[in-house]
């Protein structure tokens, strides 16, 4: 187990380094001089001399060889320095730190709903295979994975916000300030974030439970005369839900991807919205560090998932 963990750790480290290379060089593909973009407003407002430009270029290290620039950037990241936003003129770490709790709040709620509802639906469909429960669940799950999140958000705004006036259509108030208002505000965003995940979870837990209920030891349990509830709860679920753990990793990616749309549409100042704003402001420092942070979080959580997976199902380690 220890060698397995060490091996996984080393691989994760290598992957993280490649991720940083991808992010860094992708941004360097940007057409145009980052300095000109940075100076955008000032440059149009009037005179920055060539000498000053040259000076700034030197100051930001843009004259260094590209590998040196990468090294400096990476070294800074290792020391917790994510750079300074060109648009907000603020430290990217602080920017993301301010916005992260909001995304986490929505994402965690969406994830919990997803696990509870998705697993329940999937398991119910599997143990009642071929009945109406199964067909309803399968149909809902098949539709759920096809709904564009941004479209669902607009649909909900139209129905619950504009027509029925039940819920506010945008904004985010801290739950510590006004819990009731906050709850009203996040109902739609959380549901939109959860929908795709829920559908995926239901499909996965259904097929995984079907696989397990075909196993010999489940037949043995039946022939011992155990009650169905016992068989499902004590025997089938334990193994049937192991693959669902992988959803922790996938779900995190879905949370971040979903946050991009949900936060943009519902005007919630979270990480996803920050990314979109930065893309339009061509704030490459935020794009660069933001995507790196997101990828790092996902890779590290996938590492945890892999390790716990190997611990729960020892066959994996030798596979």
């Amino acid at each position: 187990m220890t060698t397995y963990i060490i091996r996984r750790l080393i691989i994760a480290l290598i992957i993280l380094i490649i991720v940083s290379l991808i992010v860094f060089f992708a941004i360097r593909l940007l057409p145009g001089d980052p300095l000109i973009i940075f100076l955008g407003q000032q440059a149009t407002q009037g005179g920055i001399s060539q000498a000053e430009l040259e000076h700034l270029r030197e100051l930001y290290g843009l004259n260094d060889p590209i590998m040196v620039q990468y090294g400096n950037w990476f070294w800074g990241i290792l020391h917790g320095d994510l750079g300074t936003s060109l648009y907000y003129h603020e430290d990217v770490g602080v920017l993301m730190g301010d916005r992260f709790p909001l995304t986490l709040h929505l994402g965690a709620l969406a994830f919990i709903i997803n696990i509870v509802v998705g697993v329940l639906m999937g398991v119910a469909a599997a143990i009642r295979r071929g009945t109406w429960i199964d067909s309803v669940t399968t149909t809902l799950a098949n539709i759920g994975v096809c709904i564009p999140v941004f479209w669902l958000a607009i649909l909900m705004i139209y129905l619950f916000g504009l027509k029925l006036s039940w819920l506010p259509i945008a904004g985010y108030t801290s739950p510590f300030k006004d819990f009731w208002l906050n709850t009203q505000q996040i109902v739609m965003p959380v549901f939109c974030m959860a929908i795709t995940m829920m559908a995926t979870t239901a499909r996965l837990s259904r097929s995984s439970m079907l696989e397990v209920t075909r196993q010999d030891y489940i037949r043995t349990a039946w022939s011992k005369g155990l009650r169905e509830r016992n068989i499902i709860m004590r025997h089938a679920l334990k193994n049937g839900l192991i693959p669902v753990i992988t959803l922790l990793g996938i779900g995190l990616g879905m949370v971040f991807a979903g946050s991009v749309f949900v936060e943009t549409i519902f005007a919630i100042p979270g990480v996803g919205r920050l990314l979109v704003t930065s893309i339009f402001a061509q704030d490459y420092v935020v794009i660069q560090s933001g995507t790196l942070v997101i990828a790092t979080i996902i890779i590290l959580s996938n590492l945890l998932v892999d390790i716990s997976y190997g611990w729960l199902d020892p066959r994996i380690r030798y596979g």
Partner: protein
Amino acid sequence: MTEKDITAEEFQEAPPRVNEWRRFLRVFLQRKIVIFGLIVLFLLVFSAIFANLLAPYDPFRGILADSLEAPSGKYLLGTDIQGRDTLSRLIFGTRTALMVGFVTVGIAGVVGVTLGLIAGYFGGIPSMIIMRIMDALMGFPMLILAMLFAAVLGGGIQNVVIALSIATVPGYARVMNGLTMSIKENDYIMAEQAMGSSNSRVMLRHVLPNAVPPMIVLVTLQLGGIIMAEAALSFLGIGIKPPGAAWGAMVNDGYRYLSSNPTLSFAPGIAIMLVVFAFNMVGDGLRDALDPRLRGIL
């Protein structure tokens, strides 16, 4: 008894010959929902090809006097702010969606399969390098990676295809890598190698053909996801640029007039859902017909 009789008897005991193609069709068309998906896809391809003939109005140049019309006999789905007919734009949007989908799948599929084949066949250092890069790409949520590249390259149909290809290559590479590693273990591969065939011959003539059925399933299932991702990028405004007709951008354009003209946003969203649903269902059907063992894997 003559020798001939014995062979005749043996022949009768042999299992009945099943026409492989017929068996495929029987399983494939077994579920009604798959047939529904096929019909939807057929209609989509049809309207993409004959968009010029089917669209009642010019999708790019509107009649300003008819701006923001509600659905009526004249404009079945209403018009947008520039007086462009929503239905015509939807029909032309099929072209955008299918083109982005097929071209992306083509590029990403060829690159991904090649990388996966090389990594899986040779193992060792090539596999290490290729698969770790793929793992790194998979560390990003697919959409965020596509966003990163679309933002850097600057939108437009060509750049959207590139961005989405980069984002989907690792999926193909990973599946192909796994397939190659398992196919490689077969005796006929060893026999071929023992006969002195070159690596490229073994890879192209023996490994690749055996990987085709699962790859077809993967491609079909991915098409829906790619079309959805293109819509998402266009919705954010970093995908297909106006005046191009893209469903995602149409949802966003219509959003501003949600309270007065909800069809502007609703209609393209339903189109996106239908396409994704159709590709997923046909993909499921193909999987069951081509290789049921893939259930739960793809």
